[in-house]
């Protein structure tokens, strides 16, 4: 049976992509040269920044989500939609935006300098935290907002007829919900920050602010110490596996929450102090998230016309990589959109791109020059990393289609091809478009494994922007970042839109 063959091929290649590089890393790490003090420091810093990032994101998300849950105002829908945007926002774009606001000559310093406030320094732990909160506050807000909106309306009616005050509301309604939701939100963000690379690369660094992922990169690029990279990769792998396993026991993978644009009628909290508190939280969150993006756009407008040929070349590379990894990811995802397929895909969460990267490097090196394969490796790794999210989107819909039509399919005796061509693909069009958009945008903005492999001839756009930044050509970097932002959002929009037009469901 043809479909089964596809499923087996897909499963074997995904499993091979897990087992091969991991084996290569383990074998190489066996020539164990010992864990140096710097490595211990990287491990400690990784855990510290992940804990603080997750904690801060969740703590700030609680009042923001509460304000969004109980207020109706112009632009609320747009703001809630924007909370989903960081998922597809290239890290390097956000970093440039944050630098424009909080950096040495950024907005905040320029505003505070006349007041005699000492200059804000963004590099180091607090810069890493700032960027992580920028990316994960929206995620935490969405998760907690979901919890708030899931509280039955009857509970608020009962609270209203009792005339319950703030503290009673907290004890009886809000705290029980938060106790259910917050640990999961914390765990997911902790896992995400655990394998933080691009943020640490751009805003961290130095012995005091190096994550394990960054240490892997440094031992590859600067020292070319493959054994040490492998040892670090092994530690990162074990750490991510443990944390990922715990996180998935508490919660599921967050992708796209539905129904966040409604709000629950409540009859409490009409006092001016409550309205003021909510307005302040919504205002701060909107400013914090929107100002950096506005700055990137503003700064980029001047630079985008001055971009050199090498930047456009990198943009072409990035588009090709994005399209390639989208195609590969969907080829994997369609036959794997089942329960066990989703479990297999979760490897994409546990295996960090850099671990995968050194594994592939070790495998390829005896046969070819790994640097020549940089773009192929990047496309493959990006597809692999997106796979769990894509499966999370596709599986429920694919299973519903199978449940609805398997009898009809058997009654008609449809071939695997007819089923795919006339039933599965047309009915999956909408989630497929969304998943493809997500993969393309994620891959477009990725600054991970490419940094490990790249040489000047094979840069992607995010790497090129990073190199321009490193060379202090900030105007060109801003122009490149704007181009990257437009391309990422554009690809997402095109695929998502394509899925919506004339979709069957």
């Amino acid at each position, binding site marked *: 049976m043809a479909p089964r063959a596809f499923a087996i091929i897909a499963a074997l290649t995904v499993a091979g992509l897990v087992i091969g590089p991991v084996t290569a890393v383990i074998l190489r790490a066996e020539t164990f040269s010992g864990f140096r003090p710097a490595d211990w420091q990287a491990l400690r810093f990784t855990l510290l920044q992940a804990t603080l990032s997750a904690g801060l994101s969740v703590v700030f998300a609680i009042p923001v989500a509460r304000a969004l849950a109980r207020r109706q105002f112009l632009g609320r829908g747009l703001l809630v939609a924007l909370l989903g945007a960081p998922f597809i926002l290239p890290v390097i774009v956000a970093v440039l935006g944050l630098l424009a606001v909080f950096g040495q000559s950024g907005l905040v310093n320029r505003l505070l300098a006349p007041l005699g406030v000492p200059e804000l320094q963004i590099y180091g732990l607090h810069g890493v935290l700032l960027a992580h909160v920028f990316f994960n506050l929206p995620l935490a807000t969405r998760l907690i907002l979901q919890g708030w909106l899931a509280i*039955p309306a*009857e*509970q608020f*009616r*009962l609270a*209203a*007829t*009792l*005339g*319950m*005050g*703030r*503290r*009673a509301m907290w*004890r*009886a*309604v809000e705290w*029980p919900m938060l106790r259910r939701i917050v640990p999961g939100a914390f765990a997911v963000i902790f896992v995400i920050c655990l394998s933080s690379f691009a943020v640490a690369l751009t805003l961290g660094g130095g012995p005091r602010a190096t994550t394990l992922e960054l240490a892997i990169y440094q031992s590859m690029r600067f020292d070319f110490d493959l054994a040490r990279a492998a040892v670090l990769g092994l530690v990162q792998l074990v750490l991510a596996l443990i944390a990922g396993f715990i996180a998935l026991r508490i919660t599921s993978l967050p992708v796209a929450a539905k129904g966040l644009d409604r709000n629950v*009628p409540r*009859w*409490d909290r*009409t006092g001016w102090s409550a309205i003021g508190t909510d307005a302040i939280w919504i205002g701060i969150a909107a400013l914090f998230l929107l100002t950096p993006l506005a700055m990137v756009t503003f700064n980029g407008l001047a630079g985008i016309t001055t971009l050199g040929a090498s930047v456009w070349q990198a943009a072409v590379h990035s588009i090709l990589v994005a399209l390639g990894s989208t195609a590969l990811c969907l080829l994997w995802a369609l036959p794997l959109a089942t329960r066990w397929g989703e479990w297999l895909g979760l490897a994409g969460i546990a295996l960090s791109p850099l671990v995968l990267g050194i594994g592939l490097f070790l495998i390829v090196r005896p046969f070819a020059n790994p640097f020549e394969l940089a773009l192929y490796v990047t496309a493959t790794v990006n597809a692999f990393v997106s796979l769990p999210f894509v499966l999370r989107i596709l599986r429920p819909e694919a299973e519903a289609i199978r449940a609805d039509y398997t009898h009809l399919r058997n009654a008609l005796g449809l071939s695997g091809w007819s089923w795919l061509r006339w039933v599965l693909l047309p009915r999956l069009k909408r989630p497929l478009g969304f998943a493809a958009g997500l993969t393309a945008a994620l891959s477009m903005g990725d600054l991970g494994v490419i940094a490990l492999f790249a040489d000047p001839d094979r840069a992607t756009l995010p790497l090129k922007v990073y190199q321009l930044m490193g060379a202090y050509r900030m105007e060109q970097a801003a122009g490149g970042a704007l181009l990257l932002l437009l391309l990422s959002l554009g690809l997402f929009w095109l695929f998502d839109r394509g899925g919506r037009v004339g979709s069957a469901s």
Partner: protein
Amino acid sequence: MALHLDHIKARSGAFDLSADLMVETGQRVAIIGASGSGKSTLLDVIAGFLPLVSGTVRWAGQDISAMTPGQRPISILFQDSNLFAHLTIAQNLALALNPATGRLRTGDMGRIDAVLARVGLQGFAPRRLSEMSGGQQSRAALARVLLQGRPVLLLDEPFAALGPALKVEMLGLVAEVADAEGLTVLLVSHDPQDARRFASQTIVVENGVVSAPQETAALLDNPPPGLRAYLGAG
């Protein structure tokens, strides 16, 4: 002293409701009508869940239209979700006594035990809702409104999920405590027998128009055309 709906109009989505009537203090009044006629909307207006378009709601001469549900001299028994399922009965009743913080103050436990005894639930204070039968949950909900101590009680088909015998028993209990406390009670029901049993007066709601209270027995023995169609030829 009376509950006065003075030329009120309200709107819920595309549905309009109008009423102009008075319910005397201490009366037990049934509200009947077809589903979708506006019975629950009427309760929402009185309880303060739905704002008025025009008119005023008065209790004992005082305009209560602008009050929040918690400020009104009104307690309500919903169809379900009358207590928080994740809290114990004692914690739920503490919320009724002290809605600002939900904490038990000294002396509260005595009042809780007393009211539980009154509804036939001695010793149920530490239980959770999930450990109780439907009838027991209804009794606990009644204990909640008794502790709130408000003069007007609204019942939105609260015992619909119970069996017929249990429902009759609960309505009897409500009637008994309402008389003892001097409560004014409005009961929404789709069952004319509830009205006969429980309420000396009945309000008919039809297509968003609310009639004034009439004698239940006379009304049901000789129903006007709209009500006759709803009740059926029997």
